[in-house]
């Protein structure tokens, strides 16, 4: 147990930053690689949440409360974004009967 506490106590800002970076990269990779529209939307949410971790980490380690307020803003916006995104996804699905983004390549050149 103490070892664990020790480990936890040793967790520094950098750990959080690395975590958020990993999450962010995972989100990015999801956007880059997944073909399903819904999964892509989720990956974007993942990216935003990774950022939230960063905010909170910075806020926590600097003792500045602003960062945590910002997370609320971000969450609100993420929600709005999700709403719009899903609406668009539904629209797309209705039109194309498909959620694979490779089907939307009419605009090119």
């Amino acid at each position, binding site marked *: 147990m103490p070892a664990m506490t020790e480990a936890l106590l040793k967790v520094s800002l950098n750990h959080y930053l690395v975590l958020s970076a990993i999450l962010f990269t995972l989100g990015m990779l999801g956007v880059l690689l997944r073909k399903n529209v819904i999964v892509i939307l989720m990956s974007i949410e993942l*990216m935003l949440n990774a950022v939230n971790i*960063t905010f909170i980490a910075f806020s926590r380690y600097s003792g500045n409360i*602003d960062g945590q307020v910002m997370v609320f803003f971000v969450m609100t*916006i993420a929600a709005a*974004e999700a709403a719009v995104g899903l609406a*668009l996804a539904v629209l797309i699905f209705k*039109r194309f009967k498909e959620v694979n983004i490779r089907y939307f390549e009419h605009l090119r050149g």
Partner: protein
Amino acid sequence: MNMQLLQDVVLVSPLIALFAMSLLPVMMKVFQGNREPNPYVTLFIGFIGLSLATGLTAALSGADKTAFSGAIVFDGITAWMSYLVYLITAVALMLSFDHVATRGRQFAEFVFLMLSSVLGMIILIMSNDLIVTFIGIETMSLCLYILCAMSKEDVLSKEAAFKYFILGSFASAIFLYGIAFIYGTVGSTIFPDILESVGTLISTNTLFVVGLAMVTLGFAFKVSVFPLHAWTPDVYHGAPTPVTAFMATAVKASTFVAFLRLFESEGYGDAVQFQNVLQWLAVLTMLIGNVAAVMQDNFKRMLAYSSIAHSGYIMVGLIAAGFGNNFDAGATSVIFYLFSYALMTLGTFAVVAMFEKAENSTVGMNELKGMANRYPLLSLSLTVLLLSLAGIPPTLGFFGKFYLFSAAIEQDMYWLVLWGVINSVISVYYYLRPIVMMYMSDDVPVEIVGTNGMTRLTVIFTAALIVVLGLMSSPVLKAVQRSVTNLF
């Protein structure tokens, strides 16, 4: 405290007025049982909203105040850029009123969304805090995503909207990530704080630099700077033309203002790496926009690429403002260029809008053939607009470019300006092509059908304005200068 809040609210009163008016048509529609109000009434209400906002802005101008604990600033640039955005919006509303893809059963919602988007833009313009900037961008963009999809045409516009949405959100995340880093290193997201510490942090703190770069790239996405430009042709192409016109002008105008505010610091003087990267981005943006436009046969896509190129030119001014010793001159040139660019782009897209007979039609270069024989005034206007885009004197476009290049030369950025010049020459090639089609072909021209009174008015009005203001650019320049230096 209360007094303070009141003052703060007064400063954002244009936003409130605009929002209230934008709700009105939708409310009417709701209360009338989802029956579309008379589009004239909707349009009229939209205009009232814009005029109210303009009036309030004018009344408040000269304040040079901050509000909401410094999160919002109301200075000369705010006022001036707000006017510009309101003007663009008014024109865009007129275009959408005429346009086959946007008029009809959802015009009330359309107006609501457009004015809400303007709301976001004004927030962006006013913002003095990165988080507010983020909120502004998102408000603006979310409305735009929907606006793009709000066409009766249902393949391209939907695809455009979706692409825009995914990529936009992707870029927003990057932007936000950058904010987080800046917040972490500076301890604040308010511009003055950030700008104050740029000088010390930029050469010492990698995390700060990373954050700054990511924020910059977030802006770069919105103004379609290479390599974040790829969405632009597709989205501009797929979106209804009035929306495209709106996006190409208003979004760029407001985003560049926020972009500009980020660079209002002496501290960038030593950031050679950063400057180099930005310069290369500017050059590549100009190049990619221009060379790709050369190969386009689709008029709208060509304009989309050209708008990428113009972002590149504006970046020149931005770099001159940020990395030189005379921010005011650079900022003046950027704002002046945004103004001239808005006018000519609106006019040109208006011509595209006129040629779109059906919601899913695309306007090829060939459709302009012989146009001068049938529509001499329109052709002349389009010629003026295109020459202005190409920067041929004595149009406004020339003076815009002239001031941009002047600002850069003042900072001895010859290399950058040289690229600007080379690109201007390339751009002449494709800007002249529609003129060739219109004047130098004897084909029977396409007939322009449908209601397009306001669109026609827009084309002629912008063209005339471009010539007149080109010949008398001094008052405009003076106004911009004063707005930048807050001397009213």
